[in-house]
């Protein structure tokens, strides 16, 4: 299996770093335009390495997000797993989409995630997050093309790395 050759730890570092981005302190007015970095990273890597990263990865990253944000334990984990499932299920289709179509798909996936989070907040009786949750989805879709370009470069470097160095 080719996935064995490429090292995985750089990807884990990328995933955890993207997750940690939610904790970077920023002024309040930036909140509505903070993209959901962790979800975007998960979607990208499940789409590109579906045999290496799957639902387990999505769940773990979601759990990390829950702990960092002090959310209900399992809230982001569930939302990210569902998004991961959809990505895994359709990864062959969405991988060959042209960029604009892919961005639309990302928008839909992020919206599904936001809806699940919103729904769980409602059921658990947590105060709703308001409009910011939905503008964040839009922000995520807008920054997807550059983020994907960066991730592509990172992936190429990781895949073409000399395996003896791992």
């Amino acid at each position, binding site marked *: *299996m*080719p*996935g064995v*050759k*490429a090292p995985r730890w750089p990807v884990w570092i990328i995933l*955890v770093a993207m997750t*940690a981005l*939610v*904790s*970077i*302190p*920023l002024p*309040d007015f930036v*909140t509505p335009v*903070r993209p959901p970095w962790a979800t975007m990273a998960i979607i990208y890597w499940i789409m*590109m*390495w*579906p*045999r*290496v990263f*799957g*639902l*387990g990865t999505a*769940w773990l990253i979601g*759990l*990390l997000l829950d*702990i*960092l*944000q*002090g*959310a*209900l*334990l*399992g*809230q982001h*984990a*569930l939302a990210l*797993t*569902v998004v991961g*499932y959809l990505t*895994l*299920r359709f990864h*062959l289709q969405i*991988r*060959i*989409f042209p960029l604009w179509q892919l961005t639309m798909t990302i928008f839909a996936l992020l919206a599904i995630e936001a809806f699940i989070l919103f729904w*769980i907040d409602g059921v*658990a*009786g*947590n*105060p709703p*997050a*308001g409009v*910011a*949750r939905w503008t964040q989805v839009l922000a995520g879709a807008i920054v997807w093309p550059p983020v994907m370009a960066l991730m*592509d470069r990172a992936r190429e470097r990781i*895949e073409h790395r000399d395996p003896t160095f791992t």
Partner: protein
Amino acid sequence: MAFSTFDSDQRAFREPNPGPRLVVICILSIALMVTDNRNQTLQTVRSMLGTAVYPIRVLIDAPATFGRWLSESFSTRATLLDENLELNERILVQSARLQRLAALEAENARLRALLESTAKIGDRVLIAEIMSVDMNPFRHRIVINKGSSDDVYVGQALIDAQGIIGQVTRDQVYSAEALLITDVDHALPVELLRNRLRTIAVGTGDLGRLSLPYLPRNADVVEGDLLVTSGLGGTFPPGYPVGSVSKITRNSGQQFLVIDATPAAALNRIREVLLIWAEPTGVAPPADARSDAENLSETATGGID
């Protein structure tokens, strides 16, 4: 580009079926959420997990800490001297006030002794720093750099120089998470300093505003009234300033007043907080606190004799 992924082709027809996994993980997540929401059994698990992410939080906090260190080390002698002078002056003023406080405290202890009710003396405090880490951006939560290794406990009150800030909601070993009084989930038992009218101050989700929704229309409250903690509920020690009434709206159709209050503490500008250990009321104060009180009452009565 899309085709060039190294693992896409040869196994494309042997797709793993993620369906059963999804079901298992969903059930697991929902069970986790229900347990976490309903009861406190996950408290220890949470504090362990929270301790595990502590390194990530330290890393995120590092640039801010470094920046502060940098600005401290490059500040000029003149600025430092100015600051020193100002702080010295402030100490002088404060200690002058404190002299009076000692006498008052002693008097209070004596009066309480006459009434045979136990006095609550000697709140222990510890300074903690707020880490530059964002929690949920939709909620008013902070992370402080003291945890259960410093005896921080869940429900502990946080204050700063101006007033009540919030309470600890989760303790981890080296850090703790706290809820600010302005969070929409937070309610705080308060009383008006002027007439000891008790009510509850509820957070609004706005850092500069609290709401007092439970005062009837004939309540004696005016703009500018000071709110202090009433000590009811046992979480917050009584007598700490909370804020002041800023706006009162009397709607003739409604049973209750719509009252806004401004928190005394500058919640969006705090850097350091004080953790308070309150002696629970009804329990005799420890020996050293009592002897302190006796010393104080001796010094206070000494002048009269």
